[in-house]
């Protein structure tokens, strides 16, 4: 699936988008896999209360299932308007 990062999450991880091969059942499982990769991922995902997640472009929770998901995005709380 495609994993996208925005704002400071993108900057901390160092890329806007990557394709990830994963069997993760939930967003939280995916986060654990990413955290285990490298320090920059662990740093970006250190405090989940500072992050929001969207699955297939709909805002959701970290316990959301990833079955059939094509796109997961991680970003800080939004500041539009």
């Amino acid at each position: 699936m495609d994993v996208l990062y925005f704002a400071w999450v993108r900057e901390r991880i160092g890329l806007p988008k990557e394709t990830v091969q994963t069997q993760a059942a939930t967003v939280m499982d995916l986060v654990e896999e990413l955290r285990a990769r490298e320090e920059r991922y662990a740093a970006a995902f250190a405090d989940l209360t500072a992050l929001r997640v969207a699955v297939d472009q709909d805002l959701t929770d970290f316990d959301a299932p990833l079955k059939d998901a094509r796109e997961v995005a991680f970003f800080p709380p939004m500041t539009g308007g």
Partner: protein
Amino acid sequence: MIIRVQEAAFDLGEEANRFAAQRSDMGAMVTFTGIVRDLARGDLDRMVIEHYPGMTERALEKIAREAQDRWSLGDVLVIHRYGDMAPGEQIMMVATLSPHRKDAFEAAEFLMDYLKSRAPFWKKEFTSDGADWVESKSDDEDALGRW
């Protein structure tokens, strides 16, 4: 419903006039415009707004649909820019058309409250000292509770 996400500046007067002119059975239009505000220190060089193409349009359409379900509206307009902006530039606008002003005002406030914390935009401020992502305010999240 008119939703536009664009890098280019827009002409507030022209957009409002064109939006109002499409219906003659609407007695009220409310518009809101967001403007790049200089910092209290007065040293903001520029602001950059990042967004999530695809989700941004979906999120704005969902919020506008919800407003149309809840209030008596002839139409809803949302324009939101991304990219590089200087202090004083217009970032975004919403406009609501309704037979009566109460619906137009309330729907415009609802659109702004939801847009601020549910549409995927992120602001970064650049000064001579460096750059900082704007942090969301808990007030913005709390504002959703009243709807």
